[in-house]
């Protein structure tokens, strides 16, 4: 059994969180609030030391990037929500954020998530160099066509759209099934890791 007090604290907190599997109880509640509090404390420290100081305070204090003051002022407008009379100013940084990210994200998304996928979906002669590769390429193309049809909202799923959409949802569910199995495996390994900690590092029952 471990003599390290930190291992004991970690083990007790792990058990407190696991106790939620039985029902919500004061031990879980304690662990939950402690976790939230520690996470917030850590986040504040992290943002101060890793974001604000190196990316704003130091460059401004050294006079290298004085224009960052304007950015800081816009960002500080988030705090105006605490002053009811000028709380409408909070919309300025929100608008800047939404505008910037829309501009930065949309062309990137069109390129990476549409055009490059489109390019990879088109079946070409060279794909049939190996018949298995060719077969999968055809199945992928059919899956993409059927799945896009399922997500066509401008028409009822009737007539030809109905069977194609049905095939589309089958493709989607097969994909989800594979993803589910894969992730469950990953979760089980996380659980095994915790058990190894409890039985090994803490209790010393396994080595």
């Amino acid at each position, binding site marked *: 059994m471990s003599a390290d007090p930190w291992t004991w604290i970690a083990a007790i907190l792990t058990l407190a969180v696991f106790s939620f599997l039985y029902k*919500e109880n004061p031990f879980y509640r304690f662990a939950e609030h402690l*976790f939230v509090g520690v996470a917030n404390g850590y986040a504040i420290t992290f943002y101060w030391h890793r974001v604000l100081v190196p990316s704003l305070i130091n460059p401004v204090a050294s006079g290298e990037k004085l224009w960052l003051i304007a950015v800081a002022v816009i960002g500080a407008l988030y705090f105006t929500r605490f002053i009811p009379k000028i709380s409408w100013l909070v919309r300025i940084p929100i608008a800047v954020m939404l505008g910037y990210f829309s501009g930065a994200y949309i062309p990137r998304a069109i390129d990476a998530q549409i*055009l*490059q996928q489109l390019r990879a979906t088109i*079946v070409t002669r060279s794909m049939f160099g190996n018949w298995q590769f060719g077969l999968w390429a055809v199945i992928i193309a059919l899956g993409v*066509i059927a799945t896009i049809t399922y997500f066509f909202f401008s028409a009822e799923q009737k007539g030809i759209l109905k069977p194609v959409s049905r095939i589309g949802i089958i493709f989607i569910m097969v994909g989800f099934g594979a993803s589910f199995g894969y992730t469950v495996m990953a979760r089980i390994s996380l659980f095994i890791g915790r058990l190894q900690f409890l039985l090994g590092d803490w209790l010393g029952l396994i080595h």
Partner: protein
Amino acid sequence: MVLALSLCLLLSSLNPATDVIAKDAPNDDGNEIILTWARSDNPTVISYRVLRQTEGEAKWDTVGVAGRLASRFADDEVQNGIRYHYKVLAVSETETAESAISEYAVSSPQWFDLDRLSALIGTIIFTCLIVFFINRAKRHAEKLFIRRIAGLDAVEEALGRATEMGRGILYVPGLSSIDDVATIASMNILGEVAKKTAKFGTPLIVPLRDPIVYTVAREVVRESYTTAGRADSFNQDMVFYVTDQQFAFAAAVDGIMTREKPATNFFIGMFWAESLILAETGASTGAIQIAGTDAVSQLPFFITACDYTLIGEELYAASAYLSREPLLLGAIKGQDYSKLLILAFIIIGTILALAAGLPVQDIF
């Protein structure tokens, strides 16, 4: 003897790389020159050393070493507007061979990245379609048809159930930041849900992970209550920040679900590994659960543990369907016609590539 020595030297002499060409890297923001060469045909070469000389200077600097199979090197330590030339040293275990000196090359930035021309054209086409349908929706919103999505029928049902039971509604708009499209769509749905909770007087609980999303969500809910004529019912504590830490947030929402026992849980937005933890806990409390996300890896968990799930783009369509706002309706119609274009490209592209052997993929 002399003949044998000459033959030996001839056999061991290393052939240099040839055709050394230095050019400014295209479609970049400058400070890079691309060097290409034809490899030495000597099999004993183990690497190529790239040497650079700045115009007006006498010394040659080694700027990099490339492997024996390399025939290209990107020098990204140059300054724009300065002329450089290069030579390549073929290196074997015992000797080196110097190539001819390349022509001068100058690095410069380009205004446009022509490699992304297809992305620009795609953006223009999709934008034009969306703008066209938004304008159309502004004039004839009632004529724009969007099919009913199964999960949406459940929204009304879930809100009604919560009101009848006198219990609250939990709305988690994902854990991502405001730059995520799913978060933006979730804000639209939150607005519609908040209008209905304001109308029915149902308690609303909105825990948040991101400080900026928190600010936006608070504004959205406040505006919905004002629009519904119930500004006095808006309580600023109904929208609250929890923590930035993913699993601490999940633990807190689990606690809220088990203590407050909301009648309906909405998980709409971007989720990661906490999705199953949230959905399973919610299911154990007996709440109706409606989820929606475009996170493909998390959708299986929501489908398994929730009553209704908006899959991927249904999430975006849901916000348009619920609000009937011309902006959103037009955007969905524009996206639908963009999908038709994509389908046409795939089908016609495949036919042309298979039947005529055309390099259709190169268009993109």
